[in-house]
Structure formats: structure tokens, C-alpha cells
């Protein structure tokens, strides 16, 4: 069956999609996080070995992705609050979204080394 076309929504719709996607990603992280932290009650050795996997470059990269998801979700969440409670929020929703994206880019740049330093040091020395 030929599907209909994707609805061509604009900034508002795609920010909502991104908000949902990052929200689900954060939920799955919290799920894994509760499990690996709870492991310390089972045995500290098992906890240590699981936590050691955070040093692996792919997991480290996923941590950076987690920072990206949380930052977007948090900043866009403030935008949604403004749209809800500020009378001029709906009027300035696009400008607020681009502000969110701007702040997000700056913070992602700032988080690059602190989050990825283990992998960067392993790969490039220092």
C-alpha cells in the first residue's frame, strides 16, 4: 500500500519529535543506570567490572550522546514551559528554539573534552 507522505511540519513539530526521542533515550539510560548502580548490592566486584565498560570508547561516545540528549531535553523543556506560561511564548517559539539550539551547541563544545577525555587520551596519548 503506498503510504501517504510524511507531514512537513516545521520547527515546532521537529522540536517536539526531538523532545520525545531524547526523553525515551534518557529513560533507557536511567533504566540501565539504576541496574548498574544496584549491582553494588549484589557484589562490589561485579559493579566494578560493569563500571569499567564505561572506559570503552563506544560507551564513552554514548555518554557524550547522553549529554547531548539531556542538554536538548532540558533546554527545550524550558522553552516548552515558556510557551505554556509566558503570554508571548507562542509568538516567540521559533526564536526560543534557535536560542536553545545555540546554547546546546556551545555546551556540547564545552562538554567535548571533559566527557571524552579518557578515550581521547587513550587514542592520542597525553
Amino acid at each position, binding site marked *: 500500500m503506498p503510504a501517504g507522505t510524511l507531514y*512537513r511540519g516545521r520547527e515546532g*513539530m521537529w522540536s517536539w519529535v526531538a523532545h520525545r526521542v531524547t526523553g525515551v533515550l534518557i529513560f533507557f539510560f536511567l533504566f540501565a543506570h539504576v541496574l548498574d548502580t544496584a549491582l553494588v548490592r549484589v557484589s562490589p566486584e561485579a559493579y566494578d567490572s560493569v563500571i569499567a565498560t564505561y572506559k570503552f570508547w563506544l560507551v564513552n561516545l554514548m555518554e557524550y550522546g547522553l549529554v547531548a540528549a539531556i542538554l536538548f531535553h532540558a533546554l527545550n523543556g524550558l522553552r516548552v514551559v515558556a*510557551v*505554556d506560561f509566558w503570554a508571548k511564548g*507562542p509568538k516567540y*517559539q521559533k526564536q526560543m528554539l534557535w536560542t536553545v539550539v545555540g546554547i546546546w551547541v556551545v555546551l556540547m563544545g564545552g562538554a567535548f573534552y571533559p566527557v571524552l577525555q579518557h578515550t581521547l587520551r587513550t587514542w592520542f596519548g597525553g
Partner: protein
Amino acid sequence: MSTPTVETHSAALDAVEAGSTKLINVTFRIRRFNPEEHPDPVWVDYQLEMDPKERILDALNKIKWEQDGTLTYRRSCAHGICGSDAMRINGRNRLACKTLVKDVDPAKPITIEAIKGLAVLKDLIVDMDPFFQAYKDVMPFLITSGNEPTRERLQSQADRERFDDTTKCILCAACTSSCPVFWNDGQYFGPAAIVNAHRFIFDSRDEGAEQRLEVLNDREGVWRCRTTFNCSEACPRGIEVTKAIQEVKRALVTRRF
């Protein structure tokens, strides 16, 4: 003093007039659906020679009158007031009678589909009953108490201005059928019903605001709105739909209206 501007003007005018008669080939890709013939919808291409300043509705009329009389769609006034011909043109909800060919990139095939979220009956016609039921449920009429006045009900300009934006609605369903929440949950009242509730909630002459707010305080009421702004983008009347919905939400929180 010489008037060279007249010369320039007429030359520019000539160019515009020459351009206006130039017809271009346009492909219209229409999502056809006829449950009596085939259970699934199909995309069908139609080639037309169009003036870029003609409307999408003109194209549909040409197809129906000259190429394929079975093409089915709603239209009535053809001037953006009756709200009959809302459809998804190149992926966005618009009125076929207010969209010009040149506005939607005629170099590529122009896709036309029925609006989303309501059951398609045939081709571009959807079942509007759930849409109008939601409209009726918010009681879109003046509610008052006491004796009827012998004169008109007076209102200040400022009071009239308060809900001016939401009086413009033509019930075309472009907003409601652009809403991702409505696509997934047909029980949601939808932007159009909330806009028409807003029109009376903030009318100083009306006394039914409490009742309407109670209706919209429902699980399927205003709280389902996720502020995707698709409705505001889609409205052919330029109503700030999301803003109206947010005002109703705030009226529910603050009880000030």
C-alpha cells in the same frame, strides 16, 4: 520634467504580461482511493498545462472536467471562506483554492492527499463527522442567563478585540488534521474545537465559559496539546491557534477569563 519612469514601468509591465501567458507543464500526483474498486489508495499522476498563477483547485477542476471525471473532492465557494477544500498539498495542509501553483514548486510533481487523521471516504474526501462532533461538544453558541435584553448586547472594542483572532475560523479542519496528537488519538478535541471554544470563553457577553472550560479540562481536552505549532502553521486564516489553546490552558489554571 521628463517622465522616464513611465517607459520603464510599461516595459516591466510588458514582461510581466508576457510571463503571465506562459503556460508550464505541471505534474499532479494525487492519492486516489476508491474502496469499491481497490481496498488500498494509489498515487496517480496527471499532466497539465497551467499558468503558474492559477490555483491548485483550478488544477483539480481541470483534471476532473477534462481528464478523469471520477476524481472526487469537496469545494464550494472556491474563495477561501467555506472551508471545504482543505487538503495536504506537498505534505502540508492548505486550502486548494488559496494555494497558487507557483507557490508550491511546480518544477517537481505536486502531491495532493486527503487531510490526515480522519477516515478517507473517497479520494480527497474524509469523514468530517468526528471533527464536527468535537466542535458541537464545546457548545459554540452564546450562553446567557436571565431575561433576554430588548436591545443588542453591548461590548467595548477592547472586549471584542480579546477574541477577534478566533472568530476567523472557517472550520476547514486544516489545523485539527495537522496535529500529531489528533492523528494518534481521534478522541482529542483538536485545535479547531478549542479555537471555537476560545471564541466564546473570552467573549464578555457570554456566561458559559465555566461549562466550556469543564469540557476542555477533560483527558482529551486542551491538556493533550503538545505545542507542535502545526495547527498555527496550517491555518489558512492565519489564526494563532496554539496561542489560543495556551490561553485556554492558562484560563483553566488561573480561572481568569
